[in-house]
């Protein structure tokens, strides 16, 4: 009987993961033992401290990894090298910002989550829980678990760890998706879809692991990579297995044809969670994909190249194309995130050293703008006569926002410009990086398609900006005010909140007894046809407790700084952008 020897674990190198997962476990205990009154405060402090601690841990590890190239921990199951640290730092930072938005509440104390997610929407039970002022604080441990999984995902050194990390990050997200306070049915439907499709993808992924294990007899990246080098007559097994593994990862990044869940889930999930999911999941999944493509299957390059090409092109084209015909803000951002997945893939396909740096930088840039923009979507609400309702996500409801809330609208416009890749925003530097990496890797047609897709994508980003700043909510030029006597006089009407009716007309809400009818809706409002907004509902920016504004400000700052002077961060990343073999 062999002796059991305790594994030698380098806890220090694992500290970012340990801090977050440890905090998640503590958070579960907090749910059990801390009185309800204090629970939210404690959970919030714990979550912020955990993510900040992870950032700190990454910073402490940075110097060592820069010098020695990184360490293999747990017998090679977790690889702590430069890209791991960059990705973990990015994920922790974005998670921290997301938690600020998740924690934000309206002045009346409403957050984004149903008080009791298990109750049937509209039921007596739900009314009761609302009256009792129940609050959902399990969100924080769930977010921390998901974050912990994301921190492991790009660091995994064997396929099993990769799979476990995938599940750890996915399961909490399925739950979080179904917890929206508003539009519960949509939210629960999204949760269900996400779970079913996620399970489907996980199964494919697991099947791929099995096939690759059958070929190599190992799950470790390093051993698979060396086994791939020796040819055998079982190549088909290896190829199908690797395609299935890539499919599982491509599902997570939302690449075509595995993207179908993205718009429905992004739309249905509580908006702060959408921001968290869109930013952090994508960073983690691209990190894992990057490592797999660069270190596990580099010798399959000639075989898998065609797959990556097809997927990258399809992702860019479909993401951009469908985004052009959307009218819901969250769905537009969802398809935009699909298109961005395509752009990032061009940087991965290159298999070029510059590609690693470019992708890592792009992920940071994209994540900051995504968290910020969903944070703003979260603040722009519908409002009935006396009550704040859910997010105003229809495009028409954003018309003229720039006139009433110029600062917030400017911030949103800035994020959109970054998405579009306009110079002096971080998005430009990011796109420039991945496209030039693609060209350096000899994939110039891919870069060309990327640039064309970007220019088409710029259209729908700029359309939103036009809508916010240059389209009046009341069509000020054309408003005719008819008084009760029937004698109509043309008069200047100060901007008042209006809604766009389902028939495309604009109706002014405020003055009772006077109806303003726009006979000739503005040409720019043509996109608004089909609006399904109930009469009596206006758009407003909710007055919140403030943490979301802090997060948005930080995101603007990151986007601006990385846009004007990206070289510092880029060179810092490029110094450590080497995978452990």
């Amino acid at each position, binding site marked *: 009987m062999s002796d059991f020897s305790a594994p030698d674990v380098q806890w220090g190198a694992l500290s970012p993961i340990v801090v977050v997962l440890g905090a998640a476990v503590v958070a579960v205990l907090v749910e059990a033992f801390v009185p309800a009154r204090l629970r939210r405060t404690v959970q919030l402090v714990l979550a912020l401290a955990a993510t900040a601690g992870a950032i700190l841990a990454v910073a402490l590890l940075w110097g060592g990894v820069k010098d020695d190239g990184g360490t293999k921990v747990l017998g090679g199951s977790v690889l702590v090298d430069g890209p791991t640290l960059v990705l973990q730092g990015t994920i922790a930072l974005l998670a921290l910002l997301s938690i600020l938005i998740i924690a934000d509440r309206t002045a009346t104390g409403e957050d984004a989550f149903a008080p009791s997610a298990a109750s049937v929407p509209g039921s007596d039970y739900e009314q009761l829980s609302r009256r009792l002022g129940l609050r959902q604080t399990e969100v924080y441990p769930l977010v921390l678990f998901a974050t912990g999984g994301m921190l492991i995902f790009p660091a995994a050194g064997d396929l099993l760890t990769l799979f476990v990390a995938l599940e750890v990050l996915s399961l909490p997200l399925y739950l979080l998706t179904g917890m929206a306070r508003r539009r519960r049915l949509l939210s629960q439907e999204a949760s269900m879809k996400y779970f079913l499709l996620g399970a489907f993808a996980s199964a494919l992924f697991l099947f791929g692991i099995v096939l690759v294990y059958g070929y190599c007899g190992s799950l470790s990246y390093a051993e698979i990579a060396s086994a791939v080098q020796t040819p055998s007559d079982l190549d088909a097994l290896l*190829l199908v297995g690797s395609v299935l593994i890539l499919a599982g990862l491509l599902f997570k990044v939302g690449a075509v*044809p595995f993207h179908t869940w993205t718009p*429905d889930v992004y739309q249905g999930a509580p908006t702060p969670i959408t921001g968290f999911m869109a930013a952090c999941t994508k960073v983690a999944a691209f990190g894992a994909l990057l490592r797999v493509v660069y270190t596990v299957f580099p010798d399959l390059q000639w075989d898998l190249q065609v797959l990556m090409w097809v997927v990258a092109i399809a992702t860019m084209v479909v993401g951009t194309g469908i985004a052009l015909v959307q009218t819901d803000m969250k769905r537009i951002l969802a398809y935009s995130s699909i298109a961005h997945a395509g752009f990032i893939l061009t940087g991965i396909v290159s298999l070029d050293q510059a590609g690693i740096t470019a992708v890592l930088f792009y992920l940071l840039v994209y994540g900051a703008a995504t968290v910020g923009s969903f944070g703003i979507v979260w603040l722009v609400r519908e409002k009935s006569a006396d009550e704040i309702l859910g997010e105003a996500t229809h495009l028409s409801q954003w018309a003229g926002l720039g006139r009433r809330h110029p600062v917030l609208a400017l911030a949103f416009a800035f994020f959109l410009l970054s998405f579009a890749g306009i110079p002096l925003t971080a998005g430009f530097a990011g796109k420039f990086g991945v496209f030039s990496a693609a060209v350096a890797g000899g994939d110039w047609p891919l870069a060309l398609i990327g640039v064309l897709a970007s220019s088409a994508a710029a259209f729908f980003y700029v359309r939103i900006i036009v809508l916010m700043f240059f389209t009046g909510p009341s069509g000020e030029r054309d408003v005719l005010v008819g008084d009760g006597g029937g004698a109509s006089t043309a008069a200047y009407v100060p901007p008042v909140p209006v809604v766009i009716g389902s028939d495309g007309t604009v109706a002014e809400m405020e003055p009772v007894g006077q109806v303003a009818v726009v006979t000739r809706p503005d040409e720019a409002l043509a996109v608004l046809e089909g609006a399904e907004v109930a009469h009596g509902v206006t758009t407003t920016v909710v007055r919140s407790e403030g943490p979301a504004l802090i997060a948005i400000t930080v995101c603007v700052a990151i986007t601006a700084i990385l846009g004007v002077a990206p070289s510092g961060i880029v060179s810092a990343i490029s110094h450590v952008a080497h995978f452990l073999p």
Partner: protein
Amino acid sequence: MHTLTAFAAALHTVPAAAIGPAGDTDLSGAGVYALAPALIVVPLLSAAVLLLLGRRTDRWGHWLGVLASGASFVAAAAVFLAMLGRPSDQRVIDVNLGDWINAGAFDLHAGIRVDPLSMTFVLLVTFVGTLIHVYSVAYMEHDTDRRRFFAYLNLFVAAMLTLVLANSYLLLFFGWEGVGLASYLLIGFWNHNTPYAVAAKKAFVANRVGDVGLVIALGLMFSHFGSVSFATVLNAHPSEGVATAIGLMLLLAACGKSAQFPLQSWLGDAMAGPTPVSALIHAATMVTAGVYLIVRSAPIFNAAPDAQLVVVVVGAITLLFGAIVGCAKDDIKKALAASTMSQIGYMILAAGLGPIGYVFAIFHLVTHGFFKAGMFLGAGSVMHGMDDQVDMRNFGGLGRYMKITYFTFMAGWLAILGIPPFSGYFSKDKIIEAAFVPQNGEDWRAWVFGGVALIGAGITAFYMSRLFFMTFEGQKRWSKKRDGGDQHPHEAPRLMTWPMIVLAFGSVFAGMILASGSRFVDWLEPVTGHTEGDPVLPTWVLIALTLAAVVVGLVLAWRRYAISTVPVVPPVGTLLTRAARVDLYQDSVNNGLLVEPGKHLTRSLVYADRAGVDGTVVGISRLPVGIGEVTRKIQTGFVRSYAASMLVGLVVLVVVVLAVQS
């Protein structure tokens, strides 16, 4: 932005900056040269204050403008005195303001060159500028935007000083554009009046044409010499071909800025600006920048005889052109503008003659700056007293009512005629003498250009006397005021008359003082070089001929406009008169040759853009939208179809991978 940085650098670093004369270690008076950047910075700051603080400065803003301009003059005078203390071969001082542009092979330091040539301009600009600032305080008193006017004037002074003090062509170009901007803003100062706004735009566009020349010249310099600093370019000894190309491009720039043929059409319309602007910018200083450019680039032109010939031809054409147009204009300001064009033609002609003429071009520029500014201010005074009338046919006999204006204007008039000992005599006569010197041993040039200059002097005497007599002598032909009342011409307030008096002293004595003992020649000679030559006729004959031509012109004008009755309604006139009234059809020519074809070109380009470019873009944009419309149908909302699409996609990918592999 770069230049702002340079100015900021000037503010902070100048006391410590490397200030040293070129090729000389004697630092006597070096401290004074540190004032040179302040010459530019002070009016610039004043303009910034006036523009940024806006209406809050309305009450005292104009005095701040006067003060800034005056401070610049005092500093300039201090620098000038320090410079006089140096031996004449050590009067070129470069003040480095730090690295400006450093990109690849292009490394340029922003810097200031203080030498006799630039100081001549600096003194003229700040002195005349300050006088006109003072004049404007009264002239613009009833304008609600007087503060903005002074801000623009200060901006102009700063830009003009940048132009003349720059030690590289690029910084010069910056000042060049700055004066263009100030000129545009000031011509269109009353832009609520559409024709005035149009005039401003016309000036701007015509100047752009010339500016392209300067930009191309900059490019040529960089490609051939690797630098655009004076230190490199002016000591480069280029081949004749390169020098000719650069020279012609510089001439194009000069034509735009100095209203020379064929880019002269904007100057007459530029009289839309307030009269002090006409005096300062469109007579005394800015329009002479072209002359400065050519004289500053003397080494390039010296190496390019063909370019020099073109310069002389342009000058000769313009001086006749302006003179002929001046004879037919009834608008006092437009007549003066035509005269300005003609006088600058003299300067350009002199500059084209090479070392024999450079000094006299600048000399005439200085005396012209005095007497023409004086006459413009006089015209402003007349307008002030005559309810803003400008038609000389409605003047007459005003000398009796406006004594100070009358006498100061008379000083300017005698000066421009070149009657000894008024200042114009000393400068213009020298140019005519220089034009009569054979160039390259070719006598025909001496006869042609000398002859043109001589005839021009005669015509000048005619039209300037016509202007003077129609305004101040003869019978009253006054029309009613705009409000229907009778005209009551009166002398202007003191703030307006004093600058006129000072300028009149300049008109009378400046030439005499500067010419005696060849002071001015000695002063400029180290920079521009100077040679003497023998005219084809003896000097005394030339002087006699010139004076004879002037007297003939004067007497003709006297008979026709002083002792006989001037019709209030302009007679039909000869064919030449009618042509001159419309500026010798220059607008029609421009319209037919450039504007109309340009319109057709833009129309066809717009059409091509709509049909071709836009059509392509719109067509292409249908593609992604179409893709979106088709693929969105897959997005049914049913999770089963999502899973199916994933599976189909996966199978396709697997098949593709396997197919490629085998």
